[in-house]
Structure formats: C-alpha cells, structure tokens
C-alpha cells in the first residue's frame, strides 16, 4: 500500500474544528420570522464540528486512501463475490428521476419506478426458476429473516405449531442460525460428509414431525455443489419441511441451473454480491426473498403487480404477509443497480458469468493444490477452500499470517477461518471479472509466500509491512471500549 498514515490524518473532525468555520453554504430565510417555542423545549448547544469544505475534502480523500477496494485491488474474498461494480449502474441510480422520488408518492406518479421494480422481480424469478418475489429485504440476512418468518407463518397456518426445528449445515454462514433464531426456531446443526456434501444419513435421522425446514447454501461455503442436493430436497419435503436456499453463492449458478427447478422453496439473493451493488465498506445491500407459488401469500410487503389491461403498476400487500421489513419498499438504489446490470448483460451476458467464475476458481485450485492442503480434492464451483494446517504444524504459520502477507503484495486477503469446519481455512473467490493475468500473479504470490513460510517465517508473522497500521490489538479494543470522540480523547 505504501501510504504512511500520520498523526494529522488521525486527527478527528472535532479536533480539527475551529469556531466560525463552515463547510456548506446555507440558504437564507425567505419567509417572515415565526415565533419560537418555549425555551425549555430547545437545546442550548449542539456540539458538532466546524470545518471548511476544503479541509473536509482533504480529510475524507486522504482517509479513503487507507482502504483496499475492488477498483484498486484483487479482492478474492470467499463467499462475498467481490466483483467489478459497473460504473453505469451508479450513474443510473443517481439519476434525479429515480433518486429524488419520495417513497410515499401516489402510485400514479411513480409508474416508472414501479415498472423497474416489476421487471426486476420478473428477471430474478426467471434467473432462479422461482415463481414469486419480494424486493423488500435490505440485506442478505434480512432476506433470510423474511424467509424464516414465512416458513414459520406457513407451518402455523397449516396448524403445525410443533414444527420448530431448522436444520443448518455446519458450513453455513453465521447469519443463517441467527436469522432462524430471530424467527423463533430452534437450530440443529447438520454435519457435512467427507466429500463436503450434506451428510445424508444424518439428515435422514434428523427429520421428523418437528422439522420446519432446512437452510442450505448452494454451492456450499466450501465452494462445492452438493451432489446429493436432489435427495436432500426430497428428504426434507417428504418430512413436511421447507427447503431454504441461501443465495450468497448464486454467482456460480447463473445460467447453469435454477434453484427452483432443483426443489428449493425459498431463496434470497444478495444483490450486493451477484448483481454488483457496490459493497460500500459494509452496505447497503439488498436481499430479495424469492419463493415458490404456494408461499406467495406470506411474502413481505410490498410487492409490485402489473395490470396488463390498464397498463398500470401498483404496490400490494399479500393477505397473510409476514409484514414489512423496513419503512418503505426496500433499498431501491440497490435494486436500480441490479436492474441496470441485468439489462446491460441480458441473457447472453448473464449466461457467461458462472462459467468464467468457475473456470477462474478451478484454475487457482489446480495450480495451488500442491502448495496448500485441498480439503476436498474435487472440482469446485466459484470458490476454492484451501487449508494452511500443514504450515501451522510445521512452521507455526497460520492462515492469518498468509492472509496478512498477501496484503504486502497488494492483494486483499481471502476469507479466513471460514467455513468453521476447515482448519486454518482460506476461502478464495476470484469472480469472473478477474483476468488470467491477475490470477497468474496471485498464484505466483501464493507460491512465493509458501516459500517464505519455510525460509523466513518472521516475515509472515509480522505482515503486513507497508500498511497504515501493523496488526491491531483487537483484545484491547473489546476490553476497554473506546467508541466515540470525547473532548478528553486527544
């Protein structure tokens, strides 16, 4: 990175403040002055910073340089699908005819926005092979929550209150059990078999009349397509359960297979992964929940419907809706970007995404499998999980050390220590937007690091070396929380 961060950069807004400065121009009062309310309702002082516009631009521009980002770095963060975010999508989302719309305008005045949402609903159903959708959830975890609430509502309305159990594979994202718990379910962990598939025997012995459903990620977070998936769906369905698909890894399936056709009843799609809403350092995202017809009445509201006769779009709330997920209609700005992306690529372009993502991941897999442990020696999908357990054993070099050393080569670390079932895991997702040249560089760097681990382990233990900070003391932060500026903070 080679950017020094100094004490001036670390000076916070309030410590840069000088009385009398301002960073914005203020419109004047153009109406006759009105009477103010009694003093006991008014605040006497508001302590906010006072800075000029030029100082703010310098401060926030400088700070931005201390970030890695897709636009600057290879970012092979497994299960996060950090692919290139097309610029046209941002431009379209910021068009005044969309970004200035108020969410409570009368339907007749927002036909364009509703048309866009309707067409996105249709496209996402087509891509995933599902029947119906709500764009309301505001992130992947929010989509999971919506799906779990629907599962609960479905079983309750079918007079099956005893269906309280959700099965979740041990390789799942943490949001899955957390979302299931928020919907009032009991979570049962399902083991993986030696091939990395869901353990069919364990599944069979876990299903009974208390089963509410299964939450499964396909391909799994091990980067593997579960070859038993048809059986898995059948077993869950035969036991009266709902099959929920976490769509975090949907990028690898686009055009190759439709989750709806495999037997999934509910899925969510992370538009900030598969459909290029930029990650923004941790959101915003969008997590539409996409379902089979028999669950339509439970979808979160609102949903856009279209009347062909009158050529009119409107918002509606399904009769047994689980409710609203947020104040308005979901993260519209993210929906616009996904729409723009799908329109740009069309069927032909969408069709090529998974092929290139999967080639890229397997290219990395085959070239690094002699250097790192490959827990599952089989064709992977869009991501490959490697283990650094041998390095840990022989040289006391951890997955963390390797990840941090990658930073020195300008590469963002892969997802580390996840999935939890792999020791010293490094989960690598290159995405389709990376070139062979970039992958060749990454592979060379990983080989170099492998050599460094043996020859010069200290280099890895102390990595990264040329970043604004060396490794940080996370324990101190948690033990002694300092979460905000105070006047004595200096």
């Amino acid at each position: 990175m080679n950017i020094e961060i100094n004490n001036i950069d670390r000076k916070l807004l309030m410590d840069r403040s000088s009385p009398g400065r301002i960073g914005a121009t203020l419109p004047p009062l153009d109406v006759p002055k009105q009477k103010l309310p009694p003093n006991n309702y008014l605040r006497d002082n508001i302590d906010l910073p006072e800075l000029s516009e030029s100082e703010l631009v310098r401060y926030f521009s400088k700070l931005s340089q201390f970030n890695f980002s897709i636009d600057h770095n290879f970012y092979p963060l497994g299960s996060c699908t950090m692919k290139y975010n097309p610029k046209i999508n941002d431009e379209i989302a910021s068009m005044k005819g969309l970004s200035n719309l108020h969410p409570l305008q009368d339907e007749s005045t927002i036909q364009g926005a509703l048309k866009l949402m309707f067409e996105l609903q249709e496209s996402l159903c087509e891509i995933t092979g599902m029947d119906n959708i709500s764009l309301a959830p505001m992130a992947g975890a929010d989509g999971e929550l919506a799906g779990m609430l629907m599962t609960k509502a479905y079983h309750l309305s079918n007079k099956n209150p005893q269906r309280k159990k959700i099965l979740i594979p041990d390789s799942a994202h943490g949001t899955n059990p957390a979302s299931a718990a928020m919907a009032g379910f009991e979570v049962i962990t399902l083991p993986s078999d030696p091939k990395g598939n869901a353990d069919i025997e364990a599944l069979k012995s876990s299903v009974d009349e208390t089963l509410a459903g299964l939450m499964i990620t396909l391909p799994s977070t091990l980067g593997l397509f579960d070859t038993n998936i048809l059986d898995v769906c059948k077993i869950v369905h035969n036991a009266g359960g709902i099959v929920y698909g976490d769509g975090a890894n949907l990028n690898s399936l686009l055009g190759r297979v439709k989750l709806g056709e495999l037997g999934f009843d509910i899925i969510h799609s992370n538009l900030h992964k598969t459909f290029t809403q930029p990650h923004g350092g941790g959101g915003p995202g969008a997590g539409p929940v996409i379902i089979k017809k028999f669950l339509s009445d439970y979808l979160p509201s609102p949903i856009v419907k279209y009347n062909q006769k009158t050529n009119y779009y409107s918002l509606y709330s399904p009769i047994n809706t689980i409710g609203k997920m947020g104040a308005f209609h979901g993260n519209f700005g993210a929906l616009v970007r996904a729409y723009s992306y799908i329109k740009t690529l069309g069927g032909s372009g969408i069709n090529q995404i998974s092929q290139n993502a999967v080639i890229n991941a397997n290219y990395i897999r085959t070239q690094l499998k002699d250097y790192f442990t490959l827990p599952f020696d089989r064709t992977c999908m869009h991501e490959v999980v490697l283990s650094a357990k041998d390095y840990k054993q022989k040289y006391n070099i951890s997955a963390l050390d390797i990840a941090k050393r990658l930073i020195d080569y300008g590469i963002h670390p892969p997802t580390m220590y996840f999935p939890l079932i792999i020791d010293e895991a490094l989960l690598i997702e290159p995405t389709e937007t990376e070139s062979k040249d970039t992958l060749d560089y990454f592979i060379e760097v990983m080989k170099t690091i492998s050599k460094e681990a043996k020859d010069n382990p200290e280099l890895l233990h102390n990595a990264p070396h040329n970043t604004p900070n060396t490794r940080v003391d996370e324990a101190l932060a948690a033990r002694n929380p300092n979460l905000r500026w105070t006047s004595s903070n200096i």
Partner: protein
Amino acid sequence: MNIENNSEYVSPYIPNTNLDRQKMLEIIGVKRIDDLFKDIPSDYLNPNLNLAEPMSEFELKKYIDAICSMNIVPGEYSSFLGAGSYQHHIPSIVNQLSTRSEYMTSYTPYQPEVSQGTLQTEYEFQSLCCLLTNMEVANAGMYDGSTALAEAALMSARINKKNKIAILDTVSPTYIEILKTYTQYQGISIYIVNENEINLEEDTTCLIVQNPNFYGNIDDMKQFAKIAHQNEALLISYTDAMSLGMFIPPGDYDADIAVSEGQTMGVPTSFGGPYVGIFTCKKKYIRQMPGRIVGKTIDTKGNTAYVLTLQTREQHIRRENATSNICTSVALIALMSTIYMASLGKKGIKHIAELCYQKAHYASELIKKIPGYSLLSDNIFFREFTIICPRSPKEINKILLKEKIIGGLDISNKIKNGMLLSFTEVNSKEDIDNLIKTLSKIK
C-alpha cells in the same frame, strides 16, 4: 466479427478471451467448460434463460430516461411529503467524497490494516451521532430508522428480560408494523398506549415514543422517561434527527436507547432506500447492542488504529445466540450522513433545522386562516403538522398535482380528512404561497 454477425456476445465485465479460457481449461485438465459443472444433475444443467438481449450503455440510458419520464419527480414539482423521508439540499461534497471507489467498492472492514478509511469514518459517524443525540454510545448504523427501532425493542427485552413492549399510539403506524414483523415469533407482545393516559402493564420492557410524533407534535419527553423508569422499563425514543438541531436531544431526557432515521442528514429520498438507522444508547448497555461497532485501539507498534469491536455479540461468532442477525448494513450511507453533518456542522445543522421550523410555521399560520381548513392540534411542532381538510385529501392531492404540487400524506385512515404536511429548506416561500393559494381554491 462483422457488424451484422454479433452472435458471440462479449461482456465488458469479463476480461478473459476464448483463448485465455482454452489455456485455462487445459491447465485445469478438462476439455469443455461443462466438465466443470458435472456435479450439477445433468437434467437440470444449462436451462433456458428467458431474458432480453444485452443493451449497450447508450441504449440503456435511453431506456431508463423513458422510465424516468413515467415518474413525477419532486424538485420538478414542489413536494410537501415527509413522514419519515425528507427532501433536503445535499452539498456536492457528500456525493463526491462518498462515491470515491475506495469507500464504495471496499468490503466490510474485517481486515483493519487495509480498511482504516472505512473504520475511521465509521468511528466519526458514531461520534457525530452521539454528539447529535447527546447519548453516550452509538453503533455504525442499522438498515433504516424503522429497523433500528425494532432492534432497540429486542435489545431492551434482552437487557431486562421482560417481554411486553408498550408503544404510544402517536408512533408512526409504519414503525409499529415493522416492530411487529421483527418481534412476532420471539415471545414478545406489543400493546399500544394512549399518550394521555399511560398505564404500563407488568413485565413491560420498554416504552416507545416518537418525537416529533407521527402527527408532527413535539411532546414532553421528560414526562415519558419518568413514567417508563418508574415502571422499571426502558425509554426508547425515535426522533427526527434534523429536529435535534433545535430541540432537546434524547440524552437530555434520560432516554435509554435513542434511534433515528439518518436519511434526513445527507441522503436522497431515493424512493425509500437505502437509508441509515442511527442507533445510540447508554454506555452500560453496549454489550447488548446489535450491529457493527468500531472501536479505537493500537497496533503492534503502538500507533492509533480503529477496528471492528465487541464482535462476540455478532452472528459470525455467536450464530443463533447473536444479538442480531445483521451482517451487511449500510456503511456507505452512514458515510454520507457523516460528511453531511461535518459539512453543515454546528451552525449549519441548527440553521437547516430552523429553516424547516420557520417554513412549516409560516405555512401553518396561513393554512389555518383558509376557510374550511384547520390544524389537528395547537401543540408545538417542528416541520410537520396535520391539517383537517374540507374534503378527502385524496381529491385535494389530485387537484394539487395539476398545479405541479405533490401534496401531503393522506392520513384519513387515522384522522378524518387528515393530511400530514412536511416542510424543509427546499420549499421556497413561492412554493408555499402557491400551495396556500391552490388549497384556498379547493372547498
């Protein structure tokens, strides 16, 4: 490839060529791409994908222009809609700085060494939220104000292990709906209490109040805090963040958890999202907070560093026992709010708040003089107030629309012929006078 034969589509977002792919497949050791997809049951492989053909950027922009022309856009029309989403002028630097790719195309800052930009700005966001609300601590943001409120209620139940939520009948019906969505299967019940006779039931975990309330009125929050605390319940306040430029903040009336919609601070109305929920509380409750929290620490050389902290509350560690399932949140929108608050600053936030107040009061004085119209109450209000119209607000709004005016929110399902009007600095005197003139003609 000649211009007629565009059979093989080349995606602008995929750098590898056919030749690259061929070389890579050889190294992988397979013949065809489909060999990589052998794990997918063959009956289901390569389904038909019924999507339109790709559009060039030029075509797409024309297409979107046509979509935009199907909308009536506030700005081109004067608008008096609020109710949780407010139009403001947003200084250029908010967009210019927040759309820098370093902020926009980075991930959640799990790797602090290469994320100090995001982390330090999130710490700034937390700090400014605390200063705005006078609360002790803040997190790095929730999806929006309404989900921040729902999560606040769940947090309250975790803190005092009680399971009834009391919510004032003057809280936005939308927020009550979202509260119901998030709490419905958690063994928590919700009951609505009348603002004028608050009797809290036993086992009440919290009292939820909105200030200004849904109808626009500013309430005596100290009294609500007293009632909540006398009943050993927490006070959760939902405030209009912009009102805090003028009115006493939640920290001054002893709120335990205070949440707001941050949209009003530098975020476009964008048809309802993405927004950012401001989430603040008393320091003693931090370990029960939902969401990301950034803390200050040091690195191995003793230099200042920021890092995601108190992560043992979160789903990736605690799984089903986490304080919330939230993962991806709204970091970029929090950044927009941060830049907005910093840019307007001490003087500017107060100024904008006062402009909202002045314009709303100018309008209210004129509206109550129009025969047939009246104000719902003579309470103190900030920038929104409810009027009783001579006929249905729906009809009135139709007539206003012909005059290029987007009227207030029709709340006739709550108050007969009730309309909620909202004013901000973007409503000029001319716009307001035009609204009054048009309303005067409708009898």
